[in-house]
């Protein structure tokens, strides 16, 4: 009954957090008692779980009661519309993922990422390449070598066609001159099956999706597209170490309506920095292999703009959007 104890502890923490909130309000003087954090993810989805876990601790640091609200529909378009039409007074924020930029570029929603502004970044999810344990490939160089010799013998599996990992593989092909096919799937789960049954030679994804198979020794990691090696997997080399200059930034952060005042931005920048240091939250996100990557508002906005430019260029190059 270890787990139930954890639950009780969790509940107690939530209780303490809400009890402590009024005190914090006085300390930090946050102008709202309760703040909505919108996500386009469904309940139990990746971003939803992350936000709900974070608000347990973050409420305390912001000095307000944070509530997560799922606004689904239109691949984030509804959530963006809700944010863009809400007052920029610090009462409502948005949990960002690359989806909201992609939807802005792929469709013509009434409101786009340009109607929002970045507040802070929180995490970068490492994108990794994995193979079945008995795969002949030891590293990326071996994959490139085999693919150059016989392009049809190596098949790259990626999740969905508009996903960041498909872009990674397309860029990988462009950088290495490999012409092997890229097979898209309906999601990370389907891709994992394809890797396990040998339909594709390798897959690209996130560590959280592979935890069980990694532990059982059914798959192994070939490389990581991060700047540095991952703490939990010190033996897995980065792509850059293997001479392939690819670093992927799948971000998770906070955005809000355009024109948020300086004091609100400052309050959130401080709160996010503090929550990343919170030992309990740290234990959770380290178990999930999330890499904390704080960026303040100015830096984050520049990052988002740059990311959007890269996406736009990619979508045009591969005919996904018209010029």
């Amino acid at each position, binding site marked *: *009954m270890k*787990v*139930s104890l*954890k*639950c*009780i502890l*969790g*509940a107690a923490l939530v209780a303490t957090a809400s009890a402590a909130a009024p005190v914090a309000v006085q300390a930090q003087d946050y102008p709202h008692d309760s703040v909505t954090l919108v996500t386009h993810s*469904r*309940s*139990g*989805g990746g971003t*939803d*779980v992350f936000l709900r876990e974070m608000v347990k601790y973050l409420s305390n640091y912001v000095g307000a009661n944070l509530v997560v609200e799922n*606004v*689904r*529909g*239109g*691949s*984030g*378009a*509804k959530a963006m519309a809700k944010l863009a039409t809400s007052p920029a007074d610090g009462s409502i924020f948005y949990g960002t993922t690359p989806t909201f930029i992609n*939807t802005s570029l*792929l*469709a*013509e*929603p009434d409101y786009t990422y340009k109607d929002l502004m970045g507040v802070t970044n929180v995490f970068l999810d490492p994108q990794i390449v994995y193979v079945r344990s008995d795969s002949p490939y030891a590293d990326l160089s071996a994959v490139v070598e085999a693919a150059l010799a016989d392009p*049809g013998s190596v*098949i790259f599996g990626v999740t*969905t*066609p*508009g996903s960041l990992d*498909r872009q990674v593989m397309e860029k990988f092909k462009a950088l290495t001159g490999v012409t092997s*096919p*890229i*097979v*898209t799937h*309906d999601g990370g*789960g*389907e891709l*994992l*099956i*394809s890797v*396990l*049954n040998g*339909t*594709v030679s390798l897959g690209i994804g996130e560590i959280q*999706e592979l*935890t*069980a*198979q990694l*532990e*059982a020794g*059914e798959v192994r990691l070939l490389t990581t597209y991060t700047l540095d090696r991952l703490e939990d997997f010190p033996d897995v080399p980065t792509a850059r170490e293997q001479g392939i200059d690819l670093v992927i930034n799948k971000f998770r952060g906070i955005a809000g309506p355009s024109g948020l005042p300086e004091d609100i931005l400052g309050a959130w920048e401080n709160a996010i920095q503090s929550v990343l240091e919170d030992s309990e939250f740290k234990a959770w996100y380290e178990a999930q292999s999330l890499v904390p990557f704080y960026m303040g508002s100015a830096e984050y906005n520049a990052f988002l703009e740059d990311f959007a430019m890269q996406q736009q260029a990619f979508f045009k190059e*591969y*005919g*996904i*959007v018209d010029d």
Partner: protein
Amino acid sequence: MEAIGYAWSALTTTPAAFAAVGGVVWGILGGALPGISPSITMALLLPFTYTMDPIPAIVLLASTYVGAEYGGSIPAILIRTPGTNAAAATAIDGYELQKQGRGGEALGISLVSGVIGGLIGLFCLVILTKPLASVALYFTPPAYFSLGVLGISVIASLSSGSLIKGLMAGIVGLMIATVGVDPVSGVSRFTYGAPELLGGIPFILVMVGVFAVSELLVQASRPEAKTSGKRQLTIRLPSWAMLRRLRKPQLIGSGIGLFEGCMPGAGGSIAAFMAYNEARRWSKHPEEFGKGSPEAIAAPEAANNTVAGTALVPMLSFGIPGSNSTAILLGGLLIHGLQPGPLLFQRHPDFIYGLYSGLLVANLSLFALGILIITPAVWLVNRPRPFLMAGIFALIFSGIYSIDNTLFDLYLVLLAGLAGYIMRLLGFPFLPLVLGLVLGYLIEANYRRSLLLTGGEHRVFIEDPISLGLLLTALLFVVGSGLRDLRDSRKRMRERDSKN
């Protein structure tokens, strides 16, 4: 023995049994409301499970799934409004029976078949998880493609009367399935810049439109008919003779549900429609299908309730959710720090057997709760027609609106309803349309993936043994139904000749 010990202690020392019953009740209610899919019903409960023990929490969610898969058939039969995607197959013959005043009987058949399907699914989950888990591994893109072709091959035999109309409806269904993001290249197709269309047109909107809205339009255009004869006001459980007749369709349904549940991406609606098709193919009375056949209810209901059990196979053994509903279950497991996958069975046997025993309670209580809940439901649909129709309109539109809180969906349902109305006037069958819609994505995506894998070689479809087997079966059925039609028409001609 150890397993029984775990199961017993889960039932006696945790509130798992209460969670099972509560989940089924909540599931039936959510499933019965059009637009509230099983996954939404489960998602609404998810926050409440945060503070519960893991076993009752997951039993609660899984039981909700069981209840919702059954609940969807209640409005499907009574008001031709499928409460869930999977119940659309039940709506076809269920509503025909309801029109004939046999609604109570239809509900009884659906309940019994659902419970039998659920128990078969659970049995297979418990006994066969290991071998079943490998089903997903044998299915490669060519096999998925051929599975879709087998499903769609039935259009030939379903369009009795007019093959051309059947094919036209099927093609329209396939066309609707192409809306949204291209499965391979990612290009947006036929979305005209509308973000609502990026994810494609949801099945439930088309189904509710063509089945329910078109029926309301037809009803509204008719003067109120005197209720003919006395209507059944209570559920009627099938007799022994009927149960014997239903055994075959139920087994067909469960068999299909067994495999569809184990494969990611297939899910309840494809299983239900394939079960309908196959039950018709193997029935002694295929001519009754579409006109109120009890077998046509038994097969899809057994199928979608079997899926509610076997869908847990890939979720528990790989950690791969095959549908939205199992994705929420997965979320529930992760919240409690349980990582599904190959090691879950070794590390947490108490959890696994607790879940199984909870599901057993859920399926058994489904039977009792189904009987209890049906009487008020039948009473409700026997209210005066103007009230009833206004109420159904409100129910459908509020349900659809609640999916994504967007008016766009309401317009789509109205459009689909209007199209369905016109199809009925012109005598087009619905089933091929729905089949095309449900299977279109599966067929297209896997056809193109297969060709990507082989660099454009079509040989792969006959080289993959599973794919070859499925394609040959499809061919056999098409030729068989062609021959049967030929023989029937010859017979009719001979009869006509001999009369003259």
